């Protein structure tokens, strides 16, 4: 199956995009939701500011879902939704949209996948909404519901994709994905056993067979292929031994893939095309471990949001591979290969050892802090290898001289920019929706949802009141707020506190010298606030900056994700920091960075602000004009250099003011 991950701006605009892609030969849909939808906030929520329609489509109520799927017969479609914390809600909206289509489709005929993997959200992606225990309950409820009522639906997709993006080694990717699957399957088994259904064991087999994986494939494609073979072996073992599954079909390891984005570069972005092709080979070469569905990123992902033409290019890569090459004509070409078998055995051994450690912690849910710290550490090592030149990235740390690229030379720099008016339109639209619906019906439905959520032990399935709330016309933010009020809110561990200190290379000792000198001049250690404004949960970059700043000898206040401008300003004031580092990857820097700077001014905090993230070249000047001291983009891969820069900025500032002049003195 071939799809491209898509959605932006509004339901209507995304619907046009989908219809266009289907006309070009795409055989399934892959829906990208915006961050407010993913984290359960309406467009008019303070936290949604700057994020509406940015990284995907906003879907606020059943009307939006109907518009998104307008003219696409859902009974024939296979729809993959990248949605996790709010997966139960979006599936409910999808079910209701299908009922209301002409002709209607019943839920038992719907096909598709909800990503619904919350553990990796705590570990790597950051779009969680509720604490771990109730999050796992939502997943178990959804699995128990779909296996009976929406039997062709894959309720969960265990994602190791994001773990590799967060720095996981192949062994970690295998081990954490399998441990995650065990946590989900154990929860589902408990749910089924405690429900009144007499078919619990039979349904457990169905559940096992319905679980698919979403993996990553890096450019070391031989090892990556071995990784997938190893995962297949572990999965079958797990099915037979832990869950008593005997049906061969259900024991098969099924996975979809999005090839690596971490390795894509901003420098000489055209090189990303060959990286994508090679990574695709990792998941297609051997038939015994071949992907079911492939999504390819666009060549210019490190620059900003891809345009339809960029996405077409990615689709064409798959089509050439499938229809022009002979790759699909042979049985498994690695059968009997000693090298491949050896590689697989090595990975299996490492993964089993790591899974045992996770089990010792009490399983994947309890081991989240351990796994998070391990990932931050692996990522730190990877960056250091690239900085030292030990790991070569063509065009970035080797062969950097280049001709001018005609691909990025046009006025917009080769990326799509979401119209800023979208947010205001969506705010207006949701207010109109609320005004026009039957408020009593919505209140009653949300009241019932709260009751079931609070019932806890009585095993009432949350899907039932969720679907009722979708029918009644409740919004995404209302659904999530109702559950937050019962479940409480949550902040995931950051992993940075536990990250081991870097070995002292020459670069680092120089940096420490500079920091020591600055400390003497300032009278206290330079203190940096690192945080992510907005809803973007991709915290890998911010974490690495925080860890390196500590290794350089600074005091680091790491604030984590999902901060409002007011929170950042209050923290900067109270903490008496010398510099603020903000990271944004979602494209909302145009709104959020000036908002933070305004908030700082209001709090009378006058310290330099530096910004890192996916910032298109043409936005840099605008940010600097707004008062940003420096902007770092993916081409600034050398974190030591960024640190030198920051130390310099703090030093220059110190020449102007004494240390006591920070804050409100």
């Amino acid at each position, binding site marked *: 199956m071939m799809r491209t991950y898509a959605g932006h701006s509004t339901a209507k605009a995304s619907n046009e995009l989908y219809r266009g892609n289907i006309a070009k030969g795409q055989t399934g849909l892959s829906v990208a939701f915006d961050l407010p939808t993913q984290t359960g906030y309406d467009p008019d929520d303070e936290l949604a500011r700057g994020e509406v329609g940015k990284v995907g489509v906003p879907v606020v109520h059943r009307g939006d879902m109907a518009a998104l799927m307008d003219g696409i017969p859902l009974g024939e479609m296979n729809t993959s939704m990248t949605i996790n914390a709010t997966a139960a809600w979006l599936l409910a909206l999808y079910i209701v949209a299908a009922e209301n289509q002409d002709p209607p489709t019943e839920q038992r005929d719907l096909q598709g996948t909800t990503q619904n993997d919350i553990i990796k959200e705590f570990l790597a992606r950051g779009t969680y909404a509720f604490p771990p225990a109730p999050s796992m309950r939502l997943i178990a409820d959804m699995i128990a519901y779909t296996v009976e009522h929406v039997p062709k639906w894959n309720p969960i997709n265990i994602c190791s994709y994001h773990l590799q993006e967060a720095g996981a080694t192949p062994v970690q990717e295998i081990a954490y994905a399998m441990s995650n699957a065990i946590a989900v399957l154990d929860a589902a088994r408990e749910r089924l056993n405690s429900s009144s259904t007499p078919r619990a064991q039979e349904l457990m087999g169905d559940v096992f067979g319905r679980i698919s994986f979403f993996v990553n494939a890096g450019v070391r494609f031989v090892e990556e292929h071995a990784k997938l073979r190893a995962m297949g072996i572990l999965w079958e073992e797990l099915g037979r031994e832990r869950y008593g599954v005997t049906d061969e079909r259900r024991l098969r390891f099924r996975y979809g893939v999005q090839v690596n984005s971490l390795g894509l570069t901003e420098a000489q972005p055209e090189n990303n095309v060959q990286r994508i092709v090679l990574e695709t080979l990792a998941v297609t070469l051997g038939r015994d471990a071949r992907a079911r569905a492939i999504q390819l990123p666009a060549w210019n992902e490190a620059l900003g949001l891809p345009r339809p033409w960029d996405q077409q290019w990615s689709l064409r890569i798959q089509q050439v591979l499938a229809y022009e090459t002979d790759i699909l004509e042979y049985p498994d070409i690695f059968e009997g290969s000693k090298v491949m078998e050896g590689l697989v055995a090595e990975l299996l051994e490492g993964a089993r050892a790591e899974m045992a450690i996770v089990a010792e912690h009490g399983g994947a849910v309890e081991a989240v802090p351990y796994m998070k710290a391990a990932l931050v550490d692996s990522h730190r090592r990877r960056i250091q290898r690239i900085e030292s030149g030990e790991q070569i990235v063509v065009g970035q740390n080797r062969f950097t001289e280049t001709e001018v690229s005609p691909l990025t030379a046009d006025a917009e720099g080769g990326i799509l920019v979401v119209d800023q008016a979208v947010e205001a339109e969506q705010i207006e639209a949701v207010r109109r929706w609320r005004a026009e619906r039957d408020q009593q019906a919505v209140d009653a439905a949300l009241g019932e949802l709260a009751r079931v959520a609070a019932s806890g032990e009585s095993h009432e399935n949350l899907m039932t009141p969720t679907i009722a709330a979708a029918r009644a016309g409740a919004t995404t933010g209302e659904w999530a707020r109702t559950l937050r009020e019962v479940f409480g809110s949550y902040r995931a561990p950051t992993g940075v506190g536990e990250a081991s*200190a870097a070995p002292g290379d020459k670069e680092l000792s120089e940096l420490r010298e500079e920091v020591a000198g600055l400390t003497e001049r300032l*009278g*206290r250690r330079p203190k940096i606030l690192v945080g992510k404004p907005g809803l973007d949960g991709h915290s890998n970059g911010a974490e690495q900056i925080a860890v390196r700043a500590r290794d350089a000898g600074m005091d680091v206040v790491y604030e984590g994700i999902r901060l409002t401008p007011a929170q950042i300003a209050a923290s900067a004031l109270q903490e008496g920091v010398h510099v603020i580092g903000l990271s944004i990857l979602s494209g909302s820097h145009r709104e959020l960075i000036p908002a933070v700077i305004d908030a700082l001014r209001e709090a009378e905090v006058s310290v330099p602000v530096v910004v890192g993230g996916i910032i298109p070249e043409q936005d840099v000047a605008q940010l600097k004009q707004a008062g940003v001291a420096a902007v770092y983009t993916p081409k600034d891969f050398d974190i030591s250099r960024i640190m030198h820069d920051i130390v310099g900025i703090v030093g220059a500032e110190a020449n102007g003011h004494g240390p006591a002049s920070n804050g409100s003195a």
Partner: protein
Amino acid sequence: MSVGAGLGKRLRERDLSAAPAALNLLESSTAADREQARALLCEVSPAALGGEAKGHIVGVTGPPGAGKSTLLSALLHAWRASDRSVAMLAVDPSSKRSGGSLLGDRARIEFDPADKSVLIRSTAAGERLGGLAPATRAAAQALAAAFDIVVIETVGVGQAETEVADVADTVVVVVQPGSGDVLQFLKSGIMETPDVLVVTKADLGQIALASRRDLSAALRSLGTKETGATRVLAVSSVSPPQGIEELVGALDEHRASLDVTERRLRARRAGALLDFTAEHGERGLRALGGRRTGERLLEQQDPGLDSQALMGVLEQASANR
């Protein structure tokens, strides 16, 4: 009036917005800033206040992962609900290799950024393991003049609560259910008995109750402190919270039962000696004529002096010998 004295005066007048700049000054080590810091502390000394600072200094300590941050979030909300202003000093360990630190606790304490009656400040412990930076002690004493509650949060078991006891009115140790090591530390005397012992994660039910029972039994076998028996409470900070109101009550009761003047005086004298040793080392202590001589000297001083002034007395004495 100098910058330092101005900030001190604002704190004395309970102007909470002076706190961040006051802390910047107290943490600084340049000669000019330290001069200002002394002026600041002088303005909030018992002599200047006409008595002890009104704020309740609460030390909260416990092993990593015991649930301190979550508990502090819940306590913060309870205190704010009764309109008490709160300052929290979160002390994190520093990296021995680089001297830098990652101050991550703030992210786990939920607060309303528009609420001007809350201050959260993360500080690094500095070079001393399990200890408090001298600035943290001075900060707690200064903030107690302006805030109703001043919390010092430290990480660790064994050393940490002793250091906190030297500055706090009330010492709370936080443990999670099933932490046998804390029991061992208590019995062996490595750990001083806290004023309040909190067992977190009461939502775990039986295990938490059993832990609470064991700890109570251990404390009974050790006898009681001079201020009364240690309270042992089980709390759960996850929704719905349990035991938080009781904890707030227990803290208030302990404070009410305390001879604050006596405890603060002792804390200031102990703090001055600690600061002196941190600054001048064992050699400095010898020049003074030994620890006991130092303690006797401090006992003769005016009870209204702050610890900075007391440290000055020690420095003067060691120079004169």
